[in-house]
């Protein structure tokens, strides 16, 4: 089992190395850093940027807004998703709304938000509307996955409602919650940068990217992109560690 995971790590390392190699070769062949900077220049730029205080402030602002909006959406999704998972009629009522929200281009939300709000508030609004349907869908499915036999056991033994939620329902849903956190956060970073590019809050990665574009600092656009990818990877790993690992232990696929 251990050899298998090491093998997996090697494989994912190789895929990233391959990607960098292709990028490097393309940059080397093109010799146009304004169009495609080399991985080396990008990395140097990222290192230089990360030495400044402003870099962390921009990063922190985007991160903070993203996390607050995501957290809020998550709470709303739980409040709506659990009842919808339990009641067929509420699900039927909700489904067209979710399809509408999911089919609306993110850009429509951003443009509307630009008309209605200013700066950072645009991000809050857009993230919530884009992430919410994905989260609700996952939570509805998670609620349906709760084992009715376990609930029946808890009910016959008169386990209190609040404890039923914490000890029976939510842990049953954990794999689905993990999936929703993972996909929802991925969307959060994408959408919040897009919103910032247009909304131009004083502090934010999107603002920095667009400024770099205006001054043709392509390597800076790449450097910020790499920074966003790293954020995504870190949070994906955290969600996996916190939410999927305990599940593997319960299922007996991991040693305690």
């Amino acid at each position, binding site marked *: 089992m251990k050899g298998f995971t090491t093998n997996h790590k090697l494989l994912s390392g190789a895929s990233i190395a391959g990607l960098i190699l292709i990028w490097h070769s393309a940059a080397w062949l093109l010799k146009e850093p304004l169009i495609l900077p080399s991985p080396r220049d990008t990395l140097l730029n990222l290192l230089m940027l990360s030495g400044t205080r402003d870099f962390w402030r921009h990063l922190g602002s985007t991160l903070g807004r993203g996390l607050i909006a995501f957290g809020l959406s998550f709470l709303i999704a739980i409040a709506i998703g659990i009842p919808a998972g339990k009641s067929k009629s509420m699900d039927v009522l909700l489904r067209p709304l979710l399809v509408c929200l999911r089919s609306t281009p993110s850009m429509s939300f951003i443009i509307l938000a630009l008309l209605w709000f200013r700066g950072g508030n645009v991000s809050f609004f857009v993230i919530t509307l884009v992430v919410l349907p994905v989260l609700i869908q996952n939570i509805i499915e998670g609620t349906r996955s709760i084992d009715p036999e376990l609930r*029946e*056991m808890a009910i*016959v033994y008169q386990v209190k409602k609040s404890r039923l939620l914490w*000890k029976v329902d939510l842990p049953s849903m954990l794999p689905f919650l993990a999936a929703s956190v993972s996909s929802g956060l991925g969307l959060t970073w994408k959408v919040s940068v897009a919103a910032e590019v247009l909304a131009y809050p004083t502090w934010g990665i999107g603002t920095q990217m667009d400024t770099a574009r205006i001054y043709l600092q392509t390597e800076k656009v790449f450097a910020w992109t790499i920074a966003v990818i790293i954020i995504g990877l870190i949070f994906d790993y955290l969600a996996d560690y916190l939410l999927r690992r*305990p*599940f593997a232990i319960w299922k*007996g696929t991991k040693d*305690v």
Partner: protein
Amino acid sequence: MYKAEGISKSFGELKVFHELTVEFPVAKITAILGPSGCGKTTILKIMAGLSEADEGTVVSTKLVGFLFQEPRLLPWLNIYQNLELVLEDKLPAQERDYAIKNSLQAVGLGEYYEYYPSQLSGGMKQRAAMARAFSYPAQLLLMDEPFKSLDLKTRFQLISDFLRWWVQKSNTVVVVTHDVKEAVWLGDRILVLSARPARLIECFQNDISLEARMDGEVSFRLEEAITKAILKS
């Protein structure tokens, strides 16, 4: 005396039983025998308050222990926590701890309380479920074919463990089964029900002592009489 008097229950067009009366004397084990689908489980669910009868009156109690066919343990809680979950607001902390450890001992899982269900065998999981029912402060214990999915040896051991516990506690127990031997091993009274819609065909008194019940030669006659009653229905 706990009882269900004149109860009727239908699922849509399907009439499970009609004006059925079954009685469960206090401090006795009543075994219910009957063909599949005759509503044995439904009777237990009605007694437990999980389901309501369409008609009739039910005399039950507020706290009811229940041993299901499957262990129904929460995979994310260890054995101790699984038992603790159902006791949390029924017993004060110290008493709870004692009840949990005591009942785990009684089923031979004294060393296993930190184990997760996934680390235990099928028989051990059912033992843990039995410990949960034992630790629960209920006067009435309902059991729905709890030994059905176990191999013969484990089944025999679990039934012995159960009877040893019961001798100390003398709870009122209702056990549903469709195994005649099991009914004779366990039941002080054995109710034989007919196929749907279920009627009470016969009620057997089992006067054989607990120790002698598992001896085939002693219980043979009673088993035969019950088998005849079932075949006649």
